[in-house]
């Protein structure tokens, strides 16, 4: 890889945008640099495997379009979106015309959506070259990306470890400089937790702030699409681009999208009341994680923030409520995958060929174990006689969680916690223990249950692995998490390199070069 490529890919998206605007670089060169990087580090046995599909031609075509418009000058060039020409990767749970969408599952192997997700339409309108689709736990069910039907993704900080999940692909791609920006989805932490694991920024907008149209549904009342980036400014720019009311999504919010990038640039914490959630620290949290967390609190305090403690007792039930609500809604959302209209159809090996049996064998072959577990669990929780005790009760816990957040936000402007109880663990460690895997989400889940916005920013290293710090704010107050997150980012990088710049060099193995990820 040339030095030039090496430098280009390490710029922030904001810096790339500035250079594109100033004519210092072309989008084609920028996009090609990223495609080269993907070819160098993504494939092969020890490659990152962040990408399930690389859209070389389409991305370069968009890049060339942008360059042409810029070169032409005039009103059209003026009208270009600030991020035009900056490449981006999209989690393979979000549908894209012209690129396959697999949801990390055999069920949708090779499936080509005939329509674009609303957020993708926005990316295309703003002319961001879409580099490709990133890996994920199958149907977003997981916290490590180990449940993808297309192989695991590796953490660029240590390729023997998980990058987090379900959106490990997007986070790893950004951490490994394969893309400056990516889109993810967050149902219980699937953007924020990988952000923490890979030393990147991951945001979950207020529920309804970003259209869900075109995001393959997992848990409809919890899912949100959000930004993945290396800096809070980059995340803010992307958030502004994708947010906004969508008439095709009935749960979509109306109202203006706040000027988040501006807020990031002016961010400080003087006078900000920061609430530490009692239930989201202590037992189950690694020492190193807690150490970085307390350092973050110290830094904030020194900069003028008021640190208070808030007590949210219902959070002890959040994990239970989540693992009832989410599988219930997901079991319903995944019923449409039956081999009738699209996707895989697998015939039973023997016996009568009836549609019931074909559905049964298709779903048996198309879904992985974790997905089946959650479908069965969800079916159970909704079934007659169990609804009240399970799904019904979980929805009540949701009310309690909202009430606890409401009370907490009386005392604090933002809440803070470690994003995840642990740093990235080794691949294969939690294979036999689904319950242990679920515990990864304990700090991120409450925000999804309440619909409030959350942002994870890098908070330093523990044993050489990134630790994430999570900020939470009331519904529609996304600006607050960006303000607090950006302020902390500034404070932590005052005298030190940003964390993303400290990521270890990835070996450009001949293997990786010989087996590029251009699937």
């Amino acid at each position: 890889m040339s030095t030039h490529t090496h430098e280009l890919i390490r710029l922030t998206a904001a810096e790339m945008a500035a250079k594109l605007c100033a004519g210092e670089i072309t989008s084609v060169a920028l996009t090609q640099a990223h495609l080269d990087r993907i070819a160098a580090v993504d494939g092969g046995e020890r490659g990152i495997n962040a990408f399930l599909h690389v859209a070389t031609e389409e991305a370069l075509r968009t890049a060339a379009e942008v360059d042409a418009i810029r070169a032409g000058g005039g009103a059209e060039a003026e009208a270009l979106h600030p991020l035009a020409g900056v490449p981006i990767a999209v989690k393979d749970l979000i549908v894209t015309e012209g690129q396959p969408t697999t949801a990390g599952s055999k069920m949708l192997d090779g499936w080509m959506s005939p329509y674009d997700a609303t957020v993708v339409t926005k990316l295309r309108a703003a002319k961001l070259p879409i580099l490709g689709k990133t890996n994920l736990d199958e149907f977003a069910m997981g916290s490590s990306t180990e449940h993808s039907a297309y192989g695991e993704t590796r953490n660029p900080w240590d390729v023997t470890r998980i990058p987090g999940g379900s959106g490990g692909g997007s986070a790893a791609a950004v951490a490994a400089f394969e893309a400056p920006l990516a889109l993810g989805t967050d149902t219980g932490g699937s953007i924020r937790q990988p952000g923490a694991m890979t030393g990147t920024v991951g945001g979950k907008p207020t529920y309804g702030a970003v259209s869900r149209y075109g995001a393959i549904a997992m848990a409809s009342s919890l899912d949100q699409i959000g930004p993945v980036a290396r800096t809070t400014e980059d995340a803010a720019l992307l958030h502004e681009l994708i947010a906004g009311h969508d008439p095709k999504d009935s749960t979509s919010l109306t109202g203006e999208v706040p000027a988040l990038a501006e807020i990031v640039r002016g961010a400080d914490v003087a006078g900000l009341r920061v609430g530490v959630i009692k239930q989201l620290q202590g037992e189950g949290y690694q020492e190193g994680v807690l150490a970085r967390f307390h350092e973050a609190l110290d830094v904030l305090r020194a900069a003028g923030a008021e640190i208070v403690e808030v007590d949210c007792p219902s959070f002890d039930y959040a994990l239970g409520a989540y693992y009832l609500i989410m599988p219930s809604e997901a079991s319903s959302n995944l019923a449409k995958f039956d081999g009738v209209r699209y996707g895989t159809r697998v015939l039973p090996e023997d016996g009568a060929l009836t549609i019931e049996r074909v559905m049964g064998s298709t779903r048996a072959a198309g879904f992985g174990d974790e997905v089946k577990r959650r479908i069965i669990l969800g079916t159970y929780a909704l079934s007659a006689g169990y609804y009240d005790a399970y799904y019904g009760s979980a929805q009540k816990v949701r009310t309690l969680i909202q009430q606890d957040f409401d009370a907490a936000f009386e005392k604090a402007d933002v809440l803070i916690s470690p994003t995840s109880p642990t740093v990235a663990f080794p691949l294969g460690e939690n294979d036999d223990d689904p319950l242990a895997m679920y515990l990864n989400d304990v700090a991120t889940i409450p925000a999804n249950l309440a619909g409030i916005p959350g942002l994870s920013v890098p908070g330093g290293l523990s044993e050489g692995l990134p630790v994430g710090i999570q900020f939470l704010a009331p519904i529609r107050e996304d600006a607050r998490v960006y303000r607090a997150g950006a302020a902390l980012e500034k404070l932590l990088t005052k005298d030190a390199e940003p964390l993303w710049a400290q990521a270890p060099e990835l070996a450009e193995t001949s293997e990786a070069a010989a087996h590029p990820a251009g699937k």
Partner: protein
Amino acid sequence: MSEISRADVEHLAKLAHISMTEQELQKMAQELAVIVDSVATVSEAVSGDIHATSHPLPLTNVFREDEVGHVFTAEQSLLNAPDAEAGRFKVPAILDEE
């Protein structure tokens, strides 16, 4: 209530239309029993007079105008169909009528 047996899983797998071998049924029952045990505690946390929240946001009355939008051609509809005939999706014999 937090026991989930192999027979339960068999019934649920039928409802969910996922074929499972005997081995899979047993393994699933074991795994789920552990999970169900831990999530069942939520029913203790709530009493009768807490209302359920099915949406994080108090949106209501979201409607659209009764105006025709885009449609697919038959080709587009059937583009990804595993099997089709005469402009329709083709499925093997249906046993149970609705």
